[in-house]
């Protein structure tokens, strides 16, 4: 190998590394610095060591928000992935109808999250009279989805699925498109059932897109702010106050940025742990 070849990968990686180092890792380091200080009203007051972490990890509100995030992320991840995968398979063929339907499914993904969640809230609200149009005929006209902790969480999960299934669909569709169609035909000739072909051809060949989709969705759901902020406001009774919403409130409403950053780093660590577990699971069940 020539000497230039040795440096080639680094030359290719240089722009990305420079950008990430200055605009992501730099602020992250400042954030870590903040997390060790008492930062009130955006101004650093005093060095406090681990006190912010201690405080965060013993706060019942934060522990509640971690649990809420776990429930939400798990529910959203499973539902979004399954629905997205089903959509990808359903809309795989290249007919005009399927292409039009892909665009249709993408619209919730394309509208600003803020507005999407505002519209969903409007639809879910019993008082607006819209949810009554669906629930009324089912004899549930007096049900308020958003006023009950359990159903409010379900609504939040629905919001995630409604918006992000399209993302999973696109990712998996791109993967499906890279599977040589010949494989399926050959298997069909050999008499393999649709389920067999899915298990033996589609799934194994989609390993990488599946992992990427799952990891991306997981990180997205753990870090999502807009859905709970707009749809449920974290309520009722903190039932949907996710950890990132809590972090946002600590930083930008309570103005205790040190604690907010400590929590952000806890979330960051939790994210890494979750992704690690996910990747391990995949590695154990087969080569990536």
């Amino acid at each position: 190998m020539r000497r230039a070849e040795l440096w080639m990968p680094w030359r290719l990686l240089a722009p990305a590394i420079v950008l990430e180092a200055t605009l992501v890792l730099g602020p992250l380091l400042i954030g870590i610095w903040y997390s060790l200080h008492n930062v009130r009203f955006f101004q650093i007051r005093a060095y406090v060591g681990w006190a912010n972490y201690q405080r965060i990890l013993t706060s019942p509100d934060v522990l509640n928000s971690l649990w809420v995030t776990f429930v939400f992320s798990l529910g959203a991840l499973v539902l979004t992935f399954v629905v997205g995968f089903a959509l990808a398979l359903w809309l795989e063929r290249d007919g005009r109808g399927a292409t039009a339907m892909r665009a249709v499914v993408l619209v919730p993904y394309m509208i600003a999250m803020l507005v999407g969640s505002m519209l969903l809230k409007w639809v879910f609200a019993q008082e607006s009279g819209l949810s009554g149009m669906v629930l009324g005929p089912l004899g549930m006209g007096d049900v308020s989805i958003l006023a009950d902790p359990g159903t409010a969480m379900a609504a939040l999960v629905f919001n995630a699925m409604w918006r992000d299934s399209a993302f999973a669909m696109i990712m998996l569709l791109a993967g499906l498109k890279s599977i040589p169609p010949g494989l399926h035909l050959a298997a069909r000739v050999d008499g393999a059932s649709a389920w067999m072909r899915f298990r033996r051809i589609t799934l194994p060949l989609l390993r990488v897109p599946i992992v990427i989709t799952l990891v991306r969705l997981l990180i997205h759901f753990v870090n999502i702010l807009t859905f709970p902020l707009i749809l449920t406001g974290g309520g009722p009774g903190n039932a949907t106050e996710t950890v990132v919403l809590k972090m946002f409130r600590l930083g930008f409403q309570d103005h205790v940025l040190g604690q907010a950053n400590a929590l952000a780093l806890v979330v960051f660590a939790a994210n890494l742990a979750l992704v690690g577990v996910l990747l391990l699971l995949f590695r154990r069940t087969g080569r990536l």
Partner: protein
Amino acid sequence: MTIVIDRRAVLAGAATALAMPAVLREARAQSPVTVTMWTFLDPTKDGGRERALKQMIESFEAANPGVRIRVEPQVWTTLGEKFVLGHNSRNAPDIGWVNAENLGLILNTEAAADLKPLVVDQWPAERRRDMLVPSLLESMTVGGKVLAMPIMAATWALMVRRDLMAQAGVTMDDLKTWGGVVVAAKKMTRDTNGDGQPDVWGFGLGLATERFSMTPAVLGTVGAQGGLFGDGCKARIATADAAKALQWQADLITTHRVTPREAVAMTSDDAIDQFAAGRYAMQIVANSRFEQIQRTAAGWNKDDLAITAVPGWSADKPGPTVIAGWYAVAWRNSPRLREAARFIEHMTNPAAMALWSNPGTQVPMMRSILARPEMAEPRNAPLRTVAELFGVSGTSMPGQCNWARTFADFNLATQQVVLGQRTVADALKQAEAATQDRQ
């Protein structure tokens, strides 16, 4: 032709285009003195307030040749935070508008200049006497320094539908006390289409912990104990008075059923929308929303909207008129501080206050403005009502205490009581701790 070279050319071109405004702005800043102001108003738009601001800028620039005012309109919810962030990175505008909820943030940082020598000390003697609520200035004074100047005053009052009151035989006198409000609300809650669900509720509430606003529980507490803070901004929320007020609010949903249970999930905006939709007979709303409710009133006559005082716990003592609204702050490190202060004076002097009221439709903060003949016209009745309330029961939150999320603490407490998760006392203890942690 290759893809990469094309992309490079496009990138280079785009980078140049993207960097342009910065270059242009540098050039513009060379002109004599340009004072930059952040506000939520856009003087280039059509509207009473916008026109008022535009006129002020024009008259100021005419009187001060060589000084130009550049307005950069901002999203109102992030104005305070961005001002402090700008201060931290030596990049704040010369003047920033701040809403009352964010004064705690400004007054607890060193971002604001002392306007006492630059503005207040220059006032003629009668200026102080002319103020409807002199305490307003005191709440912005820290250690003898005046850190903000009130521009627009707003408050929360009881909005009611006259038509529904008439149908139910309720009079304004019935709404003087919280007890009377409950009785009236019960009379006005009705199921008009016979589906077993009320479609007009007696009292509207928005109790979410996001996009929240003033609620009866807070007003009841302030009315009973005079405020939410003791000396040194010590939160006073876990009290018997607050418990009474919170219980009153939760009872609207659980016992009296004059407020929909869904209120626990509704923002203040949601609740105002429902009021405009004709679903509520009464609600505590910021007077600044009067216009919007009238404009969006669906299915009822907008002229039936009336505004009246916040109820009290007894008929002889009206509820508090808590004054909030918008304040001007000058950036402490501004190289154009003198000009900035001069414009702040120009935006808050009697001539400006007259413009804010007309065409700006703002509640007058000076007796002399309230006494003007046009204020007696029927169209200004809501403004007059509120101004009179300022004079009778006007009060303001202590500027240095951080109460930005205290309303949300009350809302969370109400949610928990309504859902049966906590007792009133426990919920308030938690609310008090949350507010205290922010000081």
